[in-house]
């Protein structure tokens, strides 16, 4: 189980380099791809999913040369795009049968059994006769997972799947992914840091078409141990703090004070107390560094 991406570059006709000389390796398990909107995550995901051709670079998965032999990858690929529609006026059951056919499940009995199982897993069995285009957002995402599972994929690519899901749906969704990811490679893009935490065994932070940091959630937070400090400030003092310190994030407290998190090797001032590093701190740090690089 090894996905190897090397030197991948993709530029759009409008001049934007969505993926810029990107290299990445991912083994079995959940791989979280964290990045802000517009970081190039979706382009990367689509390219891995054989839907787009890069300008240069290569992708291999388990020895399959993805760019030159996309069909081999598609057989073991489960892909859930960020946004997708379904054929109107077709029930979940029938649509899954259609996808199961596409994915090479030849026998009708096998298809039926498989469909029943994925419907159970995604908790859609009750509504299997309903038309998918009438599903709510969460149900539709679950349907997305259901179709993804049909070919028992080894490489699973899910692009920002949790956006817009309610807490219960999100939990359920992540749990299923986690289950699947135990044995396979799951590339999972998100801009929600919490999704990655605890779920992924590997992660990368991406921005501007490049990988800023490739790590594991635990290692990343461990590396910041003793470097994150927190303090509260009034709104008026915030600008001066930002100028003075390496502010990672700031957020309002309920009492109108502002909670500021700062990165520093030593306690920056007596007002600060040490804080337990969070994955979010890692994320902001990486982005910040990237920004500094750009500004230089």
């Amino acid at each position, binding site marked *: 189980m090894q996905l190897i991406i090397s030197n991948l570059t993709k530029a759009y*006709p409008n001049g934007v380099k969505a993926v810029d000389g990107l290299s990445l390796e991912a083994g079995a398990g959940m791989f979280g791809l964290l990045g802000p909107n517009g970081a190039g995550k979706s382009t990367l995901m*689509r390219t891995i*999913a*054989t*839907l*787009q*051709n890069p300008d240069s670079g290569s992708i291999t998965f388990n020895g399959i040369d993805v760019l030159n032999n996309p*069909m081999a990858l*598609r*057989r073991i*690929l489960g*892909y859930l*795009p960020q*946004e*997708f*529609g*379904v*054929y*109107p*006026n077709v029930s979940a059951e029938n649509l899954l049968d*259609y*996808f199961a*056919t*596409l*994915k*090479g*499940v*030849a*026998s009708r009995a*096998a*298809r039926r*059994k*498989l469909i029943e*199982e*994925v419907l*159970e*897993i995604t*908790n859609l069995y009750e509504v299997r006769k309903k038309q998918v285009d009438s599903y709510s957002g*969460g*149900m539709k995402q679950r349907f*997305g997972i259901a*179709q993804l*599972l049909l*070919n*028992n994929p080894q490489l699973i690519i899910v692009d920002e799947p949790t956006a817009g899901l309610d807490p*219960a749906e999100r*939990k*359920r969704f992540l*749990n*299923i992914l986690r*289950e*699947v990811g135990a044995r396979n490679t799951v590339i999972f893009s998100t801009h929600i840091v919490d999704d990655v935490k605890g779920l992924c065994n590997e992660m990368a932070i991406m921005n501007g078409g490049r990988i800023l940091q490739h790590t594991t959630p635990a290692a990343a937070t461990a590396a910041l141990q003793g470097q994150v400090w927190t303090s509260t400030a009034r709104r008026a003092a915030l600008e001066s703090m930002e100028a003075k310190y390496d502010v990672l994030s700031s957020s309002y407290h309920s009492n109108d004070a502002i909670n500021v998190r700062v990165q520093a090797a030593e306690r920056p001032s007596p007002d600060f107390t040490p804080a337990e590093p969070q994955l979010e701190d890692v994320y902001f740090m990486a982005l910040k560094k990237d920004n500094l690089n750009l500004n230089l």
Partner: protein
Amino acid sequence: MFTTIFRYELRYWLRQPSAYIYAALFFLIATGSMAAQAGIFGERLAVPGLAPLANSPQSIHDMMAFFLKLILFLIPAILGLSIYRDYRSNMHTLLYSYPFTRRSYLPAKFFSSFLILAGIVSTIGIGFVVGARLPWVDPALVGPFQPAAYLQTYLVYILPNILLFGAIVFAVVAFTRNIYAGFITIVLLLLMQVLAGSLLGDEGHRFTMAILDPFGQAASAYYTRYWTFTERNELLLPVQGVVVYNRLLWLGVAALIFGLAYKSFAFHHYGRPVGLKNKAGERSVKNNFGSITKVNLSKVAYDFSFRQHLQNMWALSGFEFKYILRSWLFISILIVGIAMVFFQQAQMNPQFGFKTLPVTWKMLMVPTFMFLGVVHLLTFLYAGMLVHRARIARADQLVDSSPVPNWVFLFSKLIALIRMQVVLLSLIMVGGIMVQLANGYYKLEIGLYVFQLFGLYLPGLIIWAFAALFVQTLFNNPYLGLFLLILGSMGVAGLPELGVDHYVFRYNLAPEFAYSALDGFGATLPPWLLYKTYWMLGGLSLLMGALLLWARGLPFSFSERLKIAKARFQGRTAAASLLFLLSFLGLGLGIYYEDNYGYGKINSAEEEEEWKVENEKRYKRYEHLVQPRITAVNLNMDIFPERRDFKAKGRYTLVNRSAQTIDTLLVNYSYDEETTYHLGKAARLLSSDTFIRLALYVLEPGLAPGDSMKMYFEVWNEPNSLFRTSSPIVYNGTYFNNGVFPGLGYRPIELTDNGKRAQYGLPPRNNERPHPSDSTALSNSYASRDADWIAFEATVSTSEDQIAIAPGYLQKEWVENGRRFFHYKMDSQIKDYYGFNSGRFEVKRDKWEEVGLEIYYHKGHEYNLSSMMKGLKGALAYNTRHFSPYQHKQARIIEFPATVGRFATTFANSIPFSEGHFIADVDSAKKESIDFPFYVSAHEMAHQWWGNQLIPADVLGARMLTESMAEYTALKVLEKEYGKSQMRRFLQLDLDLYLRGRGRESEQERPLMYAELGQDYINYRKGALVFYALSDYLGEEKLNGAIKAYLQKVRFQDAPYTTSIEMLEYIREATPDSLSYLIEDLFETITLYDNRVADVRITPLANGQFQVEIELAISKYRSDGKGKRFFGTETGDSLSYQTESMKTPLLSLPLQDYIEVGIFGEATLDGEPQKVELYLQKHKITRIDYRLTIVVNQKPVEVGVDPYNKLIDVNSQDNRRGI
């Protein structure tokens, strides 16, 4: 808010390249069509000043009607898209929460896109204006620029139609939130239009149709159908009466539909459900707990083998097919489609001809043109829907990342299209069988249905499906793809206009096949199959192109798609593409070469032109060279039906019937057949021209007056090939005439187009036949340039199972070497026109007095034999009694296949008759049904007198003596057999055909006695009306007496041959002075009436009688050859009548006319209510407004002026008036 949205929409459209592409295409096609109409590519006219103007209001209107079909499919693409756009981009979820109301949203959307569409279609008019002014057009074909004509067609027809259909489409798209529903609605409306046409297309529903036709075409045709040449060139289209009602009605409907759409439109996230059930809502709460599950899928086999791909392809095609089939719009198309097919088949267009029995080949023929057009449209449309289906549903990323090869997707869509085509085609079969069963016709030829529909039509449809998939794959915009496909399919039909007529250049076209019960598909299938194979290869090449260009994944630029296509071009795909493309090109080249160079005969229009020019240049000088005449023909004709060959051996006896010695002989022979010959007299060959196929001999010594010589010849056809049939022989039911044999002298087959003649350096040609008063033009009869009367003898052989027939009496019949021989000999002289028939015939025999009657017919075609016999007998009886005895001892009718022709013709004692008449459906139970087989038999039998006893000179008016007289005889025979009650219908039909014919005349109409031979609407239709009216005015006995005296004089006469002038002298003599105006009106001029009943008042009298006061409006006028009306013979002598309520006065020629006035009551005859004459009398009428009062004994229900339509009246509908 309206303005903001309106402007925003306009700006959107003005940025769309597709809008400019549509506009540019319209402009180019319009310019091209107008230029073509104005003669930029084609012939220039023979007679200047007689040109049909390309840019006359009527012509602009007609061309616009063609464009309207294209515009219709732009309506969804623009008006529909304008509202669909917001759903497609999901913009509606955002937009509909904005603070604007439907009051600004909908009208702004509608009118902005309407404005854009109006802008696009305005380029058509601009194209017309430009096309008519291009420097290379023929100025004689272009009239002055009339802005009113353009305004009229746009404001009265095009724009209201766009409003109407736009409102419908807009409403449908807004309602369904599906733009394809808009397209299918258009197809549906077109189908309903055809359906309405076949339901209401007959004379009786003309008014209703004119009001109800949503396109408004029937409304304008209501006024223009009899328009003459001049009127079509000069008049603006009428905007009055039904046209106004029609437009108001449909604008009202448009407003109503828009209003309904507006009212039901809701700014909602989801569209309204379409369905009958509306489930009651219930509170639903999903399970929010227990989210940890085990994913433990059972192990199933995944199969990616080729075999499985094939299975998937079929399964996926089912998925796509269901998508097509399961929409209520497609189901509506099926329902309307079957109705259309059914009614077209049930009616079988009896409007201008006769009804035939619902035989299977007719069932297959009748609806195919319209219906196959609809299948094409649906193929184009659904190809786009299927190709772009995943993308439209935004499921493309899921689908495209699945492990399915491109070809499985593409071919599954192709198969789905084919399955749709099969469903649509089977409607023809279902409709046909329904009609057959409904008519009690049980010879269902299921095999023929299946073979023709699925063996012949389906491949053609599949070839279009290939092209449609290619175009729709190539273009990301499916609406543009659809538009281009429609344009393309019209384009291949229209290519000949641009001078490209060879089938190898016209996608999916092939020479048509034809079916006959006698001959099956005959020899028409092989060439058809050849071309279809060729286009199938072309279509497969396109399909491979679609496969290479198939879009997989996210939209890429076109250059990237080409790069991908290049990468895909390898292995089996490359091999198949190359194989199809190369064999397509190779076969095309082969066909083209074979057709143009591998063939000796005159082939193309250019070669024919060259032949005519050379013929005239080299030999015209011999035109008046006196030649001997053929006086006897002796033939051995061998027909080989199974090989479709013939070989004839013959001998002419030539006699010098002139007063001078003939020393130069010109022998001409057929340019289609192979000919050898030799002369039975010493002669020196002066020149032999194998191109013109004419040889010049000097006779040594010359042929003295009265001397005779022999000429021997052999004629056989060039071998038939797969490409082409080179002989007139068919497998069963051969018919051909003596045109294949050699002749004498110069053949005056010349270029008639004076523009072209000038280019070739030829002097202008007068294309008219000589006037009958030209005494130098009477030496040849209309039948032959080579002979006067001939003795005829022939031995005809054919295969053993067939009967062969030639004129004459059968002397002997024998079988030799597996072939059957028939020796025929005629005992009296006949005209130089004879033919041969061969087929597997049954024979019905009968006798009229001493004359033996026979009908040779195809087994199974017994339906109308007794009617035909009656027709033969009727004509024999009538003509023998009134004119002269029959010159032969036998008469026979011989059937030939409908594929050979749809006519009947008359040789001495033999009458070849098309199959169509044998399967005519004569419902003898219905009084109003016309017995056409009877009528045609009587007509053809009458030709034994008119055309075989009497032979006119080859001058203007010749066919008045043959066709008008045969029609007159047949009418009289019909009247004797069926009574006067049938006559009105028949006369009305003749009148209608005459009036339509003169409307379509492209050269000039002539008075009956000076008509050209090809002017059937005069010679047949007007002739029948004229002689029937004359017999009514003079009395049958008196007229026939005059004709008899004339016939006695000219019967079997030699040159100088007789003319219409000579006949008219006899008729004039029999005409009293009071009626002498008739001679002028009926024969010498083009005179028409416009009579009607203006008012009627009935007063019951005390004694039980009824007093009827009638007011008539009588108007008579003359027309010149171009259809211009004249109400006076000299200035100031026309009558005029005007009351205060009339805007313009009624005009008329001076009247001294006798016109019939009738009053009808009702009586029950044979248990049915019938109209009976209470009063019928001719009145002398001298003024336009004519009033009379008549007392009748019974209650009148109808009055009429000229109630039986004996006169030529431009509107026969208003001659009777009910009370």
